[in-house]
């Protein structure tokens, strides 16, 4: 009897052993329909959360490995986190490895869409839009990676483990060529910002602005100017009248915003923004429950602001008052404040978006590419500070246009993941940071290739100096 039951239960052997996952979707039937690709594209955008996270690689590279920010006490392996600001990184640094992993995981989510879309039996125009968005993301990611590591393995499709062993670090020039190709395709294909119904998708303007930044970084100011001018002439963007209104938590996807990472916040189970609590002084317990202590502002950055510059107090908090009424003088960023964020699972469920590209950045790049202070002064004018070349401008401190732009970018775009890249692009990193006591050499401006990467494939080379 019992035997019979079991034979009945197992009568069809195949179904007895072929158990499909219940609580997860299965990859084998995916990437077929337009609905599948919508889901996959959304997941590709979600990699932005990791890539530009407050404790992500770009954040460490641009703010910690510059003169803008420091960390005091933080959670996790403190030494590995503090090594960025101290320029004492080594190849076994766990954070550097994490950023390497995150970068290629992000690329995977982008490349897998590109791998599968051509074969799918769906609308060609839709395919093109998807491809352009993915190539925008891919171009952007490689642009950041090539600045952080120099030569990097260049994959334009997903690869198996076996295939991956033959893929070594591609020369920077090759990576840049790919970046430009991707961004050119994106800027040619993507719609204007005004044509976008769902804010957050990549646009023509975003691709052009980024392309301008890439050319600028490559030293091709003419091409940079051309690309950036297209952004300006598109008429899609303008500076907001008030610098402060950029940082109002509810003020999202404004005219000034060119590419913006979108968060929801406010409730459990939706994408939450962590900039507010990660940047709050560690264990302050007076205004945030969770506080990461990341990117605490240096006195040097605080003092970079001109005394009349209202942007300083919008950007930096000089400290906070604890519950006993004592003022604790720890400077921290306050652009991404969401004071009314509810606490969900012991963390502020903030909803601040993060702007990767905004119009002020484009104007300042344009100033750099064209050596025309008019763009610089548009930014200063909005900030309400004396114009460059005009009365009251601190020309003693910033005697050249290049230095003025460097200064302006530092204060206008403070803690927006620009400073470290700016200093490296202009070749100013070593003199500026050395003057501030950081043990920097040209070699230490790049991240090391993680040792685990080289153990797995000994043909992968290390950056000189590590």
């Amino acid at each position, binding site marked *: 009897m019992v035997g019979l039951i079991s034979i009945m239960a197992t009568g069809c052997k195949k179904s007895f052993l072929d158990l499909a996952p219940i609580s997860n979707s299965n*990859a084998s039937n995916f990437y077929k329909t337009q609905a599948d690709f919508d889901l996959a594209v959304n997941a590709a955008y979600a990699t932005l959360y990791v890539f530009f996270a407050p404790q992500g690689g770009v954040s460490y590279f641009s703010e910690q490995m510059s003169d803008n920010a420091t960390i005091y006490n933080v959670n996790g392996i*403190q030494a590995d986190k503090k090594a960025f600001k101290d320029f004492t990184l080594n190849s076994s640094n766990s954070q550097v490895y994490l950023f390497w992993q995150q970068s290629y995981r992000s690329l995977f989510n982008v490349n897998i869409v590109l791998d599968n879309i051509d074969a799918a039996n769906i609308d060609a125009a839709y395919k093109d839009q998807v491809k352009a968005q993915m190539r925008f993301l891919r171009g952007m990611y490689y642009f950041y990676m090539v600045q952080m590591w120099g030569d990097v393995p260049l994959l334009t499709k997903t690869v198996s483990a076996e295939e991956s062993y033959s893929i070594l670090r591609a020369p920077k020039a090759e990576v840049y060529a790919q970046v430009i190709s991707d961004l050119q395709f994106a800027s040619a294909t993507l719609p204007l910002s005004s044509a976008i119904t769902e804010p957050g998708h990549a646009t023509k303007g975003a691709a052009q602005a980024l392309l301008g930044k890439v050319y600028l970084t490559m030293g091709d100011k003419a091409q940079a100017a051309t690309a950036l001018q297209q952004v300006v002439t598109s008429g899609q963007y303008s500076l907001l009248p008030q610098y402060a209104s950029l940082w109002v938590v509810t003020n999202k996807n404004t005219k000034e915003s060119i590419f913006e990472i979108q968060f929801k916040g406010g409730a459990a189970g939706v994408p939450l923004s962590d900039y507010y609590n990660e940047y709050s002084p560690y264990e302050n317990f007076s205004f945030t429950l969770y506080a990461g202590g990341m990117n605490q502002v240096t006195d040097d950055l605080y003092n970079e602001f001109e005394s009349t510059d209202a942007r300083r107090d919008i950007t930096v908090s000089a400290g906070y008052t604890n519950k006993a009424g004592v003022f604790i003088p720890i400077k921290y960023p306050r652009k991404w404040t969401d004071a009314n964020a509810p606490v969900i699972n012991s963390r502020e469920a903030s909803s601040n978006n993060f702007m990767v590209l905004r119009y002020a950045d484009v104007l300042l790049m344009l100033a750099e590419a064209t050596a025309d202070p008019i763009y610089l002064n548009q930014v200063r004018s909005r900030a309400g500070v004396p114009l460059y070349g005009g009365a009251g401008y601190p020309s003693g401190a910033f005697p050249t246009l290049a230095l003025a732009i460097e200064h302006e970018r530092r204060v206008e775009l403070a803690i927006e993941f620009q400073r470290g890249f700016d200093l490296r692009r202009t070749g100013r990193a070593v003199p500026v940071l050395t003057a501030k006591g950081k043990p920097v050499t040209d070699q230490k401006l790049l991240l090391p290739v993680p040792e685990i990467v080289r153990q797995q494939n000994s043909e992968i080379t290390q950056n000189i100096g590590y």
Partner: protein
Amino acid sequence: MKRYIHCKACDIQYGLNYIIKRLKKSAGKTIIIMKLTAVILLVATLQVSASSYAQKVTLHETNSKLKSVLNVIRKQTGYYFIFNKAVLQKVKPVTINVTDENLKEVLNEIFKGQNLGYEIKEKVIVITQMVRPESSSSKDGVSIPPVNIKGKVVDPKGKPLIGASIRVKGNTKGTVTDENGNFALQAVENDAVLLISYSGFITQEIALNGRTEFAVSLKEDVQSLSDVVVVGYGTQSKRAVTGSVTSVNYDKFKDRSFSNVTQALAGQLPGVNISQSQGAPGSSPVVRIRGTSSITAGTNPLYVIDGLPVENFNLNLINPQDISSVEVLKDASSAAIYGSRGANGVIIITTKLGKAGITNVSAGYEFGVQTVNRQIKMMNAPQFVQYYVDAHNNAWTAAGGKASDPNSVRGPAYRIPEDFTNNPQQFGEGTNWQDVMFHTALSHNAQLSVSGGSDKTQFLISGAYLDQDAVLDQNYYKRLALRVNLKHQISDKFTIGANISLTSIYDRTDGTQGKADVVSLGVTSDPIFPVYNENGNLGFRDPKSTWYRFTQYSDLQLWNPYSLTREINKQDKTYNTLATGYAEYKIIEGLKFRTSINANLTNIRHNYYQNALQKYGYSSAGPAIANNNTTSVLNWLSENTLNYEKQFNKHKLTALVGYTAQHQRDEYNDVSSSNFPNDLVPTLNAGTVTAGTSLASEWALLSYLGRVNYSYADKYFLTATLRRDGSSRFGENNKYGYFPSASAGWLISEEGFMKDQVKWVSSLKLRASYGIAGNNQIPNYGSIGLLSSSNYTYGSTVVNGLSINNISNRDLKWEKTTQYNAGLDIAMFNSRLNLTLDAYYSVTKDLLLNVPVPDITGFANQLTNIGKMRNQGIEIGFTSKNLIHDFTWTTDFNFSVNRNKVLELGPNNAPLNYNDFSVAVRTEVGQPVSNYYGYIFDGVYQNQAQISSSPHDPTTTPGDPIVRDVNGDGKITADDRTNIGNYQPKFISGITNTFGYKGLEFSFLFQGSYGGKIANQLVRYSGLWNGGRNAYADAANYWRSEANPGDGKHFKPTVEPKGLQNQFSSYWIEDGSFLRVKNIRLSYALPKSVFSRMAAVKGLRLYVNAENVFLFSKYTNYDPENTTYAATTYSPTATSVSPIPTGAFLGVDYGSYPVPRVITFGVKADF
């Protein structure tokens, strides 16, 4: 006539019947017989070459057909049977065990109760039907009335045996001997047979044969080879075991106070390393059988509970008092019958069943006291204050400041509370947080069981309640276990049975997670803070408290452990039903079909409520949070086997084939709430639900199995098994795997040249085996590429996203361990000395390795079958009965050595590195699994000259650690890290001495482990400066200046560690060797005279049991067996292999629960 003469033996009886029929028609009886004799003699000469027949008979038959028994007698004696076919139609099966017995006695025994008579006429035995009532019987057919009998049972020395059991065979009548060894029974059938048994002695059968007084002398059972051991899907006589199986019966753990039977076996089993990694009540030990054979797949042995194989079973669910034996299948040949799940060894648990005869009621009560007998020496308040000040000044100096600078000029990280510089005396000695957290804990354990039965039905009913307070604040463990085991023989052919156990456990356990869990906090919290502040709150983050002034120094730590034990209310409720129902049907003689259905149903409910603010005692000081989750598991198994047994001459064959199907479904729900108006209602309805999820997961296994045992002359033994497993977990191209084994044994002592020649050898057996067993412990959908959700937002709209979670692997299959085992069992000097030796060599290939793949693929690793590992070792176990008379003394000793080596890894043999909170382990080819990997610490730099003259990190200043330039390149780089130890011991050993005198028994067990290394991860908090946690008292001897260099082992603290100041190094590694007095036990069985007035009481025993009595170890933390990381297992709902398999970190202690000393006082009574 001739036709019958020429036919084979099997036809003879038919032929004789034919003769009888013919003869019956004749008149003269004598003539008939004479003619018959002539015929028979002719048959005899044709059939058998030897002409002389013994009148002695040897028979070992169990429930055999009378006809076949007669046939055996015929062969042995040459006598022939004559009977009418009809006569034998209603006979009962025969059970008889006689050696060299007279034919007549044997016949009496066989025909007893058969309603048959016989006559011996020369060499022919004529069987006749008797015409008389069945109830009464005698040889001559005359009914004899029942008689009263009495007697005395003694041992070979003539000493009375108290409590020996006397039972009348075939019915329930019985008694036990009194304190003088005497017994009496009324109204016993005159032809009855008495069964006299006593533990440790050979059971004797005595036929009344008219006698009414008996003097019985029982022989000691020194022949351990006659024991039966449980192997997979059946039992085997110990004599015939050819693999490596260790069997432990109830006597070995009956008085031990553990809730999990394996804990009681630690130090007692060769080749089995059982270590108590956490001391929390109910936490299961880490069990390693013959080393570790996997790197990233699970490494726990398979548990088989009354036939139900269960992975990662919590053995606490089985009350040890219900267990009759534990068998450990160590070698792959024994485990291969469990196929894809046997590679980590198999532990078979068999629960008790009543014995036919007297009903036994057993009651017991234990009272226990637990204490933490070892404290970690931490800094007191003055030491801590000094440490804090120096750590800040050292960092500030390194940043360019001066130690004398006031806070106003220092950066936030370098500031020092004024209290520390102005008035450090205010803190006194400070708080010893370990005193706060641990207390003496009591436990109660009550047991009641009733067992017994008749020849046809046996049963056991038991209930037990354990109520254990734990040494850690607010922790407890309560277990109620009920069991019913039943077996009933419906007919000669049909037997059914059921084992049902119901267990519920209510417990609360904190502190086992290490790091910021309760035990770790109890060690690392700062001594300057009081347990309660002046407002009755727990923390200095109370804004109304004067202590709040310290909050601006973010590196002062008080995560008051009470905030987790007293401000969080949590409980786990586990309900488990384990049920087995089976039926056995004897199809024909020797062929038995067995079918069983087994189920394990587990429900675990977890309730959690965290009070708002937690009295400011924890870092978050957040709003109230509540969580409730439920895990529900149903595992069922259908098992169908055919078992065939056949003996012919000296050949004995048993064969088993089987088919089993097993399925498990796990479901998990989790709901969290917050926004509670107050702390009055702890259930989720009072708040608003903030998160909820539900998950489900399944696996299934289909198996075909077969086994053949063959023995010749009870001297040569062969076993071969084969199992074919199909599993849902593996890739579609590799769903099925085969697991064969073969083993052989040679009982040399039975050979003529040994048996009579070498008197001092009681028995000697050689064994050799080979087998392949598998490991399937990976996530349920490990082979399938899963999609996981990664949502995004456009504007204010949240959109779903799906991305690939892991790389699929259609070829994924089992890890396979091939093991060779050679063993020797020798019993010497009348079995006074028993020795078992085993040597094994095993290679695991196709390791289920979550192999790191280049990250540029988008993934860090892929679950695949790559790599090879070897384990080889030697195990020695011996038992010596040093004294066996009035005063007894037995010594049990075991010793095991295992050597583990990785032979092959993934692509390029790249080493596997895992890091978790500074501790790094590395697995590389040519080395054992999971070496600690770090720098070599060589002391402390005293001055700049010393630094300049040696390779050093550029940040090094005097007082910093000296790090060895391992590769000799003149620089200190990451390449100077090397292997700095491994947790695996060089050898483990245990020795138990047991003394007995009259009713008194005393034993003690030493357990030792040598050569393992511990990575003390608590060094990260307490061995060097980390965020202001309290440090080891030793660390106060740090370097202060060249003139005040400390002990040379502790470098200067700094709040901004640079270079190698806080890197993982040999500074973190400690010797894990230990010697432990694991157990001391004293028990006293009261003489009957003490309770003679209580007629119902059959036995009364008092005992004291002490566990973890003394520990000899140099280890800094609580216990060298402590390891915070558990053996690798995969939760049923896991969707991927964890990037850091916890098993790789065994031996790493991040502040584990101390293993308490437990002293229990118990009383047990039998009625």
